[in-house]
């Protein structure tokens, strides 16, 4: 079974009224990293996932969710 990672990073960022650049600077990554994580083009490492969760003061599971890829049976 294959999985894909979804996230609510853009939503959480919008709630805080932050730009990608501001969020990137807060956790010490490039804006491209934030941009590509939000669009699902790039899967972040545990370090970035934990940094983001810490920044938003939520659990990692509240930011990222692992979903079964479409077409895969349970």
């Amino acid at each position, binding site marked *: 079974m294959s999985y894909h990672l979804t996230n609510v990073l853009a939503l959480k960022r919008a709630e805080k009224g932050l730009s990608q650049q501001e969020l*990137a600077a807060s956790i010490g*990554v*490039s*804006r*491209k*990293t*934030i941009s*590509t994580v939000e669009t699902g083009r*790039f899967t972040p490492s545990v370090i970035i996932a934990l940094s983001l969760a810490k920044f938003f003061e939520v659990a990692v599971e509240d930011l990222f969710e692992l979903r079964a890829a479409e077409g895969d049976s349970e």
Partner: protein
Amino acid sequence: MNKVINPEQEHEYILHNSRISISLGFGLAVLTTDQIFNLSDKSMLVSASFYLIAALFVISTSYFLIKSNKFIKQSFSKNAWMGTYHDEFLNSVSLLGYKLSALVMSLIALLAMCFGDSLSDIVSLKALGTALVSLSFLIYGVVTYIKLHQDEDEEAP
């Protein structure tokens, strides 16, 4: 001593590297074409065009190399010179560039190994070497440039 690395500087640096690679790759491709077809010995128009194109690539590569001075002054991390970036996304883009470049080089080397005897009548070893270096620069440059510009229109609010 641990240097504080700014991810945006790294982004600028990898973008700069991709431009140098593309420029150098095209320049070497022009040189390869000359080595195979002897363009500089052809008619006045052909050789003038060849020298003009070659000069353009020499100028653009020199321009990008002079601009590199800025990064040298920033006492950039030794890792970045080795193609390893502190920022994860940039590192993945750079690795993808290297991987595709190595893959294509290996395929061409494999073809040269299989058809080397018949190829040696058409292409000299020097031209083949120049073509390989040119391709490796071009592939690394184009791949990193595309990957770095893929999400440009999805700029944050």
